[in-house]
């Protein structure tokens, strides 16, 4: 494993500026997730590190070595794509051993066998090693695709939404497994996703991207608790942070145009709060209820205990508890 340094990289496709002056260092053994909506430049960044795209400017260094003009094969990276592309005529074992058997490597067969079996155990597919790739379920195929990358011990694993083709349940299981494997192997991973849960639960650090720019990078907790602007604040948290006009509340610091209130910044009571709001809808999501409120014409969504018997039409009292403040441009204002 190794440190990967992306230095002031930019990339345009025609008139579209896909990545703008992006700098990021992924430490040895670190799991960095790039989070953002479709078109934010996440996948392009990954492809620039892999060497599948050449940057217009800037550099990529792996383990201290400038690889900016190296071919993908010379960079010692392993890529896992969203769509698992396995060789259908080969067994799981042969699929996983494929890269190790490349003529340039010349690994002894016993070593290949040991490595494949070790990774198969990590991924819980050891019983499937002699099945044809086409006889597997979608989840198993994606494990094989990840396994094919893991056997190689490259400098860095580059993963582009590897879990997004799995169903919700399997995705949940794989999140925990992948994180566990990453810790066990001490693997360096750059991981692209538009799913905030994947980023929050797996990453050592999250890089939030918008329109080709890296808006903020930090631990999941830093990004969640201390976002630099309203855009980043809205990327994490379920239900989404409420962005409310400052005029709805008294005692707001000067220069503040928007108040960012997450569910933990809002206390709901029957009375005694700062402002009143009307319940417009209650969603029982099982473990929690999402309460939709009308606060002076502004929609507010917050969590409530499923046993707090709130009904549509109830008038409740809201109190702010150390919310986030943003200025007119969306930038953070100190409380």
């Amino acid at each position: 494993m190794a440190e990967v340094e992306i230095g002031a990289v930019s990339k345009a496709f025609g008139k579209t500026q896909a990545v703008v002056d992006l700098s990021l260092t992924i430490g040895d053994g670190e799991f960095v997730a790039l989070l953002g909506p479709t078109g934010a430049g996440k996948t392009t960044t990954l492809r620039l590190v892999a060497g599948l795209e050449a940057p217009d400017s800037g550099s990529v260094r792996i383990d201290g070595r400038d690889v900016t003009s190296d071919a993908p094969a010379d960079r010692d990276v392993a890529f896992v794509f969203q769509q698992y592309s396995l060789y259908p005529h080969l067994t799981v074992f042969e699929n996983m051993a494929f890269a190790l058997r490349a003529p340039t490597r010349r690994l002894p067969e016993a070593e290949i066998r040991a490595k494949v079996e070790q990774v198969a155990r990590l991924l819980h597919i050891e019983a499937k090693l002699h099945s044809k790739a086409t006889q597997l379920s979608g989840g198993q195929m994606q494990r094989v695709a990840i396994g094919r990358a893991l056997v190689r011990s490259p400098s860095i694993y580059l993963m582009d939404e590897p879990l997004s083709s799995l169903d919700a349940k399997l995705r949940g299981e794989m999140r925990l497994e992948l994180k566990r494997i990453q810790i066990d192997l001490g693997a360096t991973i750059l991981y692209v996703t538009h799913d905030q849960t994947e980023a929050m639960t797996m990453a050592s650090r999250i890089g939030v991207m918008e329109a080709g720019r890296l808006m903020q990078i930090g631990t999941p907790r830093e990004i969640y608790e201390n976002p630099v602007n309203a855009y980043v604040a809205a990327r994490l948290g379920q239900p989404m942070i409420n962005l409310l006009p400052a005029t709805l509340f008294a005692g707001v610091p000067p220069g503040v145009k928007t108040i960012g209130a997450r569910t933990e910044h809002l206390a709901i009571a029957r009375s005694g709060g700062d402002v009143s709001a009307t319940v417009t809808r209650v969603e029982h999501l099982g473990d929690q209820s999402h309460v939709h409120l009308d606060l002076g014409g502004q929609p507010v969504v917050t969590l409530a205990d499923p046993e707090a018997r709130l009904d549509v039409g109830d008038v409740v009292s809201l109190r702010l508890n150390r919310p986030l403040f943003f200025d007119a441009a969306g930038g953070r204002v100190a409380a």
Partner: protein
Amino acid sequence: MAQIRVEALNKSFGEFHAVKGASFTVDDGQFLCLLGPSGCGKTTTLRMIAGLELPTSGTISVDGEDVTMNRASARDIAFVFQLFALYPHMNVRRNIGFPLKCEGIGAAECDRRVVEAARILRISHLLDRSVSTLTGGDRQRVALGRAIVRKPKCFLMDEPLGALDTEMREAMIQELRALHDRLGATTVYVTHDQLEAMAMADLIAVMNNGVVEQIASPRDIYDRPVSLFVADFIGSPAMNFLPFRGSLQAGAQAIRLGDRDVAIPTAREALVESDLVLGVRPEHVRFSDSGMVRGEIYGSEYLGTTQIVTVTTPYGALKARSPASMPFRIGMNVGLDFRPDTLSLFDQGSGRAIRTALHEGGKHG
């Protein structure tokens, strides 16, 4: 608007029995989700209501009128598909107006209704844009516009949000439900995503292998699942299942798990010794030094407000939802307790829930 009634509906494709005896009623203005994994028969059921498939047996009535054998075009319904099949060479206005034009409605009336549909969906500013320049969410809004412009008796939707990314899907869930609240149209909605169903539906019908296993409000489905399948399918992370062997007396208030008694809602039936399963939702697991189940922390997943902690125990890996502020270390030894009044019991063999006081909690929600 309309009430939809489905009675003893069956559909076979050759040897394959896709829908087995489905019966349910969607009242006027209600939002029903047909929920289940792929192949469970939910889309086939929807297509029979639409008239795109004919049932092998059973009846479908809309507002009391038997429409089982009516053509799709004679049913006064609007169908919204997962893939927004828009006409790429037409702009937004012509796409939305297309169904009206087909019905031979005059240009002035057509235009008035297109403008109204666009206003409801908040896409008025896009009316003269080409559909190929729109984002996924806006395309799906146009597809919805084409459905609502017809003012049908009911809407049938087949995974309309399936092709959108997470963030857009969450926004559209709120929009669709708000739209439903404004229009009040009877809606049947197919999805495999339990969160979509929980967030939008008045009623959820959970389907498995062609059978409707349970039909109830989201809250009842979550709190009082009638089978292992429903309990496992609803909720994220899923309910924890602790397998054990035991017998049960009617009136019992505890079960024997290992060498400890675990309090449960009062049993309403008796069972001879058999393979049973205790079901515990992750939010009903509490950490406690004197906890009745011991285990070791395997990992924790930070979610902002809460975290999901996975614990390896003699009963398998159990998940607990706890406040994000609680510190955990991998490998730490912990004890777990369960909140008694929320626990479910299942018969392992049949998968059915064992009747307890839990099921007397009323039909609220």
